[in-house]
């Protein structure tokens, strides 16, 4: 990966994201959602994006705002339909966006496989369900499995708690969620954090995403939002 760049603005952090890119977007609902990087991506203007994220946006912020701006061609996610996913719902019903529903654990494991150099894996999830239709299956040791392939990203946008200047990252509580998996699954990983600290400050035993997976870091002001619904 080469040295991690510690940048001053989110706009520098998302520079160069090409039209047609596959972008992994962290977060589970609002926890760990990289709002500032997404806002910058909207300003940056890349379009025809494929977004991989657990959800398909809440209210009209974050991912929902990116969708509303018409930049997204396709969404891979586990749970698009939420009480406040009206932006996605509208685009989907009018046929303006493609959807691939992936079980949440498969979403995580398929990205893990991409980061770990695994070509494909036999997974017990979804056997015998509509989400396994058309997929290769095999019985191993008496149990049936479905063959699943990696999901790689061109970019990952992640929100975390603290990074050191070398690019090591730690998260906070359940906001960790998809961050470490996406960081390893993308060619270029961009992380927004609340704090950038000197290298040597983080406990080496407690680093969650080692710097090798992190290409760009940018500090953002902590955002206050209510837990359910829009900020």
């Amino acid at each position: 990966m080469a040295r991690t760049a510690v940048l001053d603005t989110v706009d520098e952090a998302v520079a160069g994201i090409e039209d047609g890119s596959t972008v992994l977007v962290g977060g589970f609902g609002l926890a760990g959602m990289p709002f500032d990087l997404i806002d910058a991506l909207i300003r940056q203007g890349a379009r025809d994006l494929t977004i991989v994220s657990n959800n398909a946006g809440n209210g009209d912020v974050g991912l929902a705002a990116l969708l509303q701006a018409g930049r997204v061609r396709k969404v891979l996610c586990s749970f698009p339909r939420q009480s406040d996913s009206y932006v996605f719902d509208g685009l989907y019903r009018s046929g303006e966006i493609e959807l691939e529903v992936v079980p949440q654990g498969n979403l995580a494991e398929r990205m893990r496989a991409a980061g770990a150099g695994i070509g494909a894996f036999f997974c017990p999830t979804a056997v015998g369900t509509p989400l396994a239709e058309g997929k290769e299956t095999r019985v191993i040791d008496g149990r049936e499995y479905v063959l699943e392939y990696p999901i790689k990203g061109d970019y990952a946008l992640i929100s975390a708690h603290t990074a050191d200047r070398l690019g090591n990252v730690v998260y906070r509580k359940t906001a960790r969620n998809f961050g470490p998996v996406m960081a390893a699954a993308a060619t270029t990983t961009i992380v927004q954090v609340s704090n950038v600290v000197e290298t040597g400050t983080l406990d080496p035993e407690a680093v969650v995403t080692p710097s090798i997976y992190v290409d760009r870091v940018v500090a953002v002001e902590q955002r206050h939002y209510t837990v359910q619904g829009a900020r």
Partner: protein
Amino acid sequence: MTVEHADRGPLTMDELARVIARDIPAGSYVNLGIGQPTRIADHLTADQEVVLHTENGMLGMGPAAHGDDVDPDLTNAGKAPVTELPGASYFHHADSFAMMRGGHLDVCVLGAYQVAGNGDLANWHTGREEDIPAVGGAMDLAIGAKDVFVMMTLFGKDGSPKLVPSCTYPLTGVGCVSRVYTDHGVFEVGPGREAATVLATYGLTLADLAARLSLPLSAADR
């Protein structure tokens, strides 16, 4: 012997949650699905020492958070704010679902649209064309615990049974449910059984249930 509680009405969801809580073995690692199963947490006792898993990446989840305890970085799988108990640990999504898929959880309790006598589960999709499909962790949870319990009403709003000979809704998992807890009775189901075993009834007799359900039932042995 099936325990028949015909002299009372069906269980409320809260009473049902208490029944399930009592059946969870002490020391278990448990995932409570979003919706009704979440209530079970309120009925687990401290000396059961049950550890709750939430698939968004935590073991040792505590009760719902209120007021100043709300932390946007600490939510459950339903995205509601929760708390952290002593001995908690955090991990990322791949590790969290590896924990489930690897069969390390003792019990998972899920809601359902339908459960079949062979343990098939349908709880993610109504099958209606106009509904946007959304699966979340349902399929991973369905195959991911040593015992998968279902918590649901036995009948739908239209009176049709939700414990069925064969699911008509799209499946979440095949043969994965071992026990079905409902307001009208508790049933053992699973692959290879000729009949669902009725462990208890509430507000109806075993005979009543046999008349209203279209799958074979048998009384419990003990």
